[in-house]
């Protein structure tokens, strides 16, 4: 905390009393000539769940996708600045993007299981990364991942059925199981509950609680209550900038910025 006064700008962006897993410094993202993220610096802690909130179009998804370089798949997107994972620059030429995405997993807004069996969905990642040494090993990985995703008891008797034939909430938990099957260190979730009903949402939130500590988790959400329930740290984005970042309890009870306060109290957004 010695550099607190030295680096005023970064002070609020530190993940308090939590070793940073990923650090972003002065990140800009452009789509063609249009700038979607402006000079964002933020730390993502290992122990806490971090929530990104902000009005639609403010760049939450865009910034989230810079953390596992999914923006590489958008040909017009360009990222500048520095983002590190355990201190290694993920945009440096030495960084293998395949390896990076195995370490930084992602769950999407709309559940997107592959049109394969439940088993094959979970086995997909371990298979392409060669993580299992045999059938028994793969079975164990699949079971462990499904258990962690809280899905094992529901699907253990129908592992060979299609992943697309499940309910939306089950599909989303399958996607989470698929992501954790490769033992990532960070899991990014982009509005993982927005396509789900309240009961399925509650299950996912519970799951996030259980996964906390094992993985660094970043979740984008439009739902203030959800951010308050699942996260310990909250970042408020507005028009491509990071307005405020702090403990969730602080942000929701005593925000420093009026823009944050207006958004949280529903005055705009």
């Amino acid at each position, binding site marked *: 905390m010695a550099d607190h006064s030295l680096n005023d700008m970064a002070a609020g962006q530190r993940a308090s009393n939590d070793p940073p897993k990923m650090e972003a410094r002065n990140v800009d993202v452009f789509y063609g000539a249009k700038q979607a993220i402006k000079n964002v610096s933020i730390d993502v802690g290992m122990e806490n769940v971090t929530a990104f909130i902000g009005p639609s179009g403010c760049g939450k998804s865009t910034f989230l996708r810079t953390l*596992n370089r*999914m923006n590489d*798949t958008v040909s017009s997107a360009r990222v500048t600045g520095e983002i590190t994972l355990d201190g290694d620059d993920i945009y440096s030429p030495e960084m293998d*993007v*395949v*390896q*990076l*995405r*195995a370490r930084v*997993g*992602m769950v*999407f807004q*709309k559940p*997107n*299981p*592959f*049109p*394969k069996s439940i088993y094959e969905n979970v086995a*997909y*990642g371990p298979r*392409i*990364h060669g993580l299992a040494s045999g059938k028994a090993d793969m079975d164990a990985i699949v079971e462990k991942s499904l258990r962690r995703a809280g899905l094992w008891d529901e699907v253990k008797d129908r592992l060979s059925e299609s992943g*697309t034939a499940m309910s939306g909430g089950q599909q989303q938990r399958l*996607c989470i199981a*698929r*992501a954790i099957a*490769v033992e990532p260190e960070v899991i990014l979730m982009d509005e993982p509950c927005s396509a789900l009903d309240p009961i399925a949402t509650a299950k996912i939130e519970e799951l996030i609680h259980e996964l906390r500590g094992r993985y660094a988790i970043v979740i984008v959400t439009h739902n203030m209550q959800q951010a308050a329930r699942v996260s310990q740290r909250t970042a408020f984005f507005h028009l491509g900038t990071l307005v405020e970042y702090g403990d969730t309890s602080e942000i929701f009870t005593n925000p420093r910025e009026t823009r944050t306060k207006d958004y949280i109290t529903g005055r705009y957004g």
Partner: protein
Amino acid sequence: MTPGFILLVILALAVAGWFAGRAKAAAFPRATGAARAHSLPSQHGWFVAIWAAAPALIFLAVWAAVVPGLTLNEVLRAPAASALPAFPMERAAILSQARALSAGQTMPELHPLAASLASVWGAAATRYGMIGLALAALLAFAGGAWAWTRLSPRFRARTRVERIVMGALLGASLIAILTTLGIVASLLFESLRFFSRVSPLDFLFGTLWSPQSGDEGTFGAVPLFWGTIFIGAIIAMLVAIPLGLLSAIYLTQYAPPAARRWLKPILEVLAGVPTVVYGYFAALTVAPAIRGFAATLGIPGASSESALAAGLVMGVMIIPFVSSMADDSIAAVPQSMRDGSLAMGATTSETIRRVLVPAALPGVVGGVLLAVSRAIGETMIVVMAAGLAANLTANPFSSVTTVTTQIVQLLTGDQEFDSAKTLAAFALGLVLFIVTLLLNIVALRVVKKYREAYE
């Protein structure tokens, strides 16, 4: 009185009816609300015009069908006709000379009787022409006048016209369907005649095809079916499936938009090349090259017409077909599948191999089935390059023959129409029709089901 002139008269009456109807409707008192005229003046015009033209045209069609008979009757009743010879051929020849003469044609060797009958013929034709014109004009006028009297501000000309238009469209589509049914029926009928001479079992399972042998020939079609499958479903698909699929993958996943804009139309040009061009390319370029190649390797049985030459060229012809179906299917796989795989750390090629292609597979399979049905019905390439020898062989360098080639072979040249040889062509056509129909139905089912999966 030529039919063209009668048509012109009907048309003129219809145009007059259009103007009359419109003029009457335009003079309706202008009102608003419920009293407002239901239809526009021009719609009233169309109503009158259709009523003027349609009955007269229908009458004309019927009239044109019966007039030749009436005319002939009249000529035969003339005194000069009693001198006609009784022998039918000669009789018909003289009558047709007379008719041609009356129509103003000149001819060198004229039968004297024809000249005298020609004037009778001409007179009769003119009279019936006049009657036809008068009746048609009367009908047109009556129809138009009746329609015209019905016009009133409340009259729903617009709805009527709409209904007539719908009827006309329905008629057009019925003609296409009925024609198809007619063709199928004749195929079926002639095939039944064939099967009354040759047992269907011998035809479908016999392995000797020799239509020229003996009086009746031998019709075991298995070598033909095999040749068709060998060329169209095996060799051609070995070329078309990998090349079509890979080019579709390149175009959808790797090609920059600019390259896609250029490459896709160029690929589709392949589908527009006339098959006869492929045919002589196969016969003159590919086949000799393959024979030379086989000869240098010392492969026995290499002939100048080979299954391989026809199959390879046919495969090339089918590539755009497979590629565009595969392209559609891959493009229909949602982007979220691709993102999901990439986000797991899969590379683009792993994503294609493990997610996109399996997800697109039903669509690709449907496309391949359609391609097969096209390939086995294809005629020109195999006629020119595959040969006529009905060999039952798996050697791609030797000559085989196909169903379509044999149909062409059986029907060209002088044949009595009801010989077993000719009828065999219909039976082959029927088999081909049934197989391609089934392939099409299955393929469309598969493709449709797959489309639904992502909608």
